[in-house]
C-alpha cells in the first residue's frame, strides 16, 4: 500500500508539475510579468550557482524520501524514488524540459521561495490513492507544498494574525489578497469579522489597504479588488482556505499561497 501511496503522490506531483509548467511556459512566452517574477529568482540562481542550485534541488527531492524511510514508510520511499528521484536525474542528465519542473523543488532549499509557492504544488499529504484523481483537475491552480516553503505573503498574514489575542486567533481568519493596478502592487487585508482588529489596523503598512464588510476574509478582499479594478494575483490566509473561497480565488485568476482546507467523503478537514 505504501508503495502505491508513494507512487500515487509521485504521479500526482508529476502531473501537477507538468500542468503548471505548461501553463507557466505559455505565460512566460506571452510576457506575463508575474510569471517572469516568479521564476526570475530561480533562473538567476541557476545562472549564478548551477551546481549549488542543482544540489538544492536534489536535497529537496531526497528529504521526503529520507523522512519516509526513517519513519518506516518504506513503500512510500520507494514510490517517491521511482517517480521523483530517478526521473529528476534522467531529466537533468538528458537536459529534458522537465528539468525545469524539478528545478522548482530547489525552493524547498530556501533558494526560490516564490518559485515553489507559485509552481502549483500545494497538496498536503495524500492519504490514499483515491483522492489523487480529483486533485489533478485543480493541479494547475494549486500551489507548492506549504510545509516546505512559506510564501512571504503567508508570513505577512501570519504576522498580522498573531497580533490577535491567542483565543481569537483560533476562531477568526485574516487574509491578504495581493493585486496589481496600473503597475502598482496593492495588498488588500481583511478579516472574517467585519473589520480587522484595532491592533491589526494599526500595524498596516503603506501599500496595505483594509477591506471592511461582510463575508469570509478571502472573499471580502477579492470582492474589494474586483470593485476597485485591482487584478488579484496571490491570496494568503491565516487558516486553511475553505472550498468556497478556493473556488472564488480560482475564478479571480489569482492563486492561493497558503494551505487549502481539504474535503474527504463530504467532511471538511483542516
Amino acid at each position: 500500500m505504501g508503495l502505491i501511496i508513494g507512487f500515487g503522490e509521485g504521479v500526482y506531483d508529476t502531473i501537477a508539475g507538468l500542468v503548471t509548467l505548461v501553463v507557466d511556459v505559455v505565460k512566460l512566452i506571452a510576457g506575463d510579468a508575474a510569471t517572469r517574477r516568479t521564476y526570475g529568482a530561480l533562473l538567476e540562481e541557476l545562472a549564478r550557482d548551477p551546481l549549488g542550485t542543482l544540489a538544492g534541488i536534489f536535497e529537496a527531492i531526497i528529504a521526503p524520501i529520507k523522512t519516509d524511510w526513517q519513519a518506516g514508510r518504506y513503500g512510500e520511499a520507494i514510490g517517491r524514488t521511482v517517480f521523483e528521484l530517478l526521473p529528476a536525474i534522467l531529466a537533468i542528465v538528458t537536459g529534458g524540459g522537465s528539468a525545469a519542473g524539478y528545478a522548482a523543488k530547489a525552493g524547498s532549499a530556501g533558494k526560490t521561495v516564490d518559485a515553489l509557492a507559485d509552481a502549483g504544488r500545494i497538496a498536503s499529504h495524500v492519504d490514499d490513492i483515491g483522492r489523487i484523481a480529483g486533485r489533478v483537475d485543480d493541479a494547475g491552480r494549486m500551489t507548492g507544498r506549504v510545509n516546505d516553503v512559506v510564501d512571504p505573503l503567508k508570513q505577512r498574514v501570519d504576522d498580522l494574525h498573531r497580533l490577535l489575542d491567542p483565543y481569537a486567533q483560533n476562531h477568526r481568519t485574516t487574509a491578504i489578497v495581493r493585486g496589481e493596478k496600473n503597475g502598482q502592487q496593492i495588498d488588500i487585508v481583511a478579516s472574517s469579522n467585519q473589520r480587522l482588529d484595532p491592533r491589526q489596523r494599526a500595524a498596516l503598512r503603506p501599500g496595505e489597504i483594509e477591506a471592511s464588510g461582510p463575508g469570509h476574509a478571502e472573499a471580502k478582499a477579492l470582492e474589494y479588488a474586483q470593485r476597485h479594478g485591482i487584478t488579484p494575483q496571490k491570496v494568503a490566509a491565516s487558516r486553511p482556505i475553505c472550498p468556497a473561497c478556493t473556488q472564488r480565488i480560482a475564478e479571480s485568476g489569482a492563486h492561493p499561497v497558503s494551505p487549502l482546507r481539504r474535503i474527504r467523503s463530504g467532511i471538511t478537514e483542516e
Partner: protein
Amino acid sequence: MMMESNQLRTHLDALPPRSRTAFAALCCERLLPTYQAFQVVERAGSTSVLIDALDAIWAYIGGATLSSEAIAQLQATCEHVAPDTEEHTSLYAELALITVSAICLTLQTILDQQSATAAEVAERALAAVDAYLNRVADPQLTVHAVNPAFDAWIASAPLFASERQFQQENIAAARTITMLQDHDIARLRAIERTRGIQPFIRGLVKNEMPER
C-alpha cells in the same frame, strides 16, 4: 476626564494582583450580555460555561485558590464555546468571541499577575464597542474601503466614551475589592451586566435566556 490606555496601565500597575483580576472581571461582566445575545440569535454557544468561569474568578478574588490546572481547564472550556466568525456571521458572534477572549485573559491574570494582561482585557472591551459601532453605524453594507472619518467618529462616539468611563470606575472599585462582602460583589457584578452595549435591556435582542 477619561482615561487613555497608558493612564489605565499606570493605574493597573499600582493595583495588587487580585484587584487587577477584579478590574478585568468587571469588564467581562459588562461583555457577558453580548455573549448571551449570540446564544439567542444564533442558537449556539453556552453562556452558563462563561458564568461558571466568572464565578471561579470571583471566588479567587474573594480569597479562594485556583490551581493552574483548573485555570487551564476553565480556559479550554470557555474557548470550546467560542464562536468561529467564519461560521457565525451575526454581529453578536464577533462580540461573543471577544467576550470569551476577555474571560480567558482574565483567568490568565491569575496565573501571570501582569497588569499588561488586565490592560488587554480592557482593550477587548473597547474592541467590542468598536466592532459593535462598525456593524450598526456604518452606512455601507457591502464590501468597501475604510473611511478615516468614520473611524474618527467611532473613537469619539458616546458608547466608546462610556466604556472608557466604566473602566475608570472599575479601577476605583477594584482598589477596594478585597474589603467588600460577597453581597457587595454580587451587586457590583449585577450592575456591570446592565452597562455597555446591552442588547437585551435596549430591546435589540429578545430575552429568551433563563436568568442566572
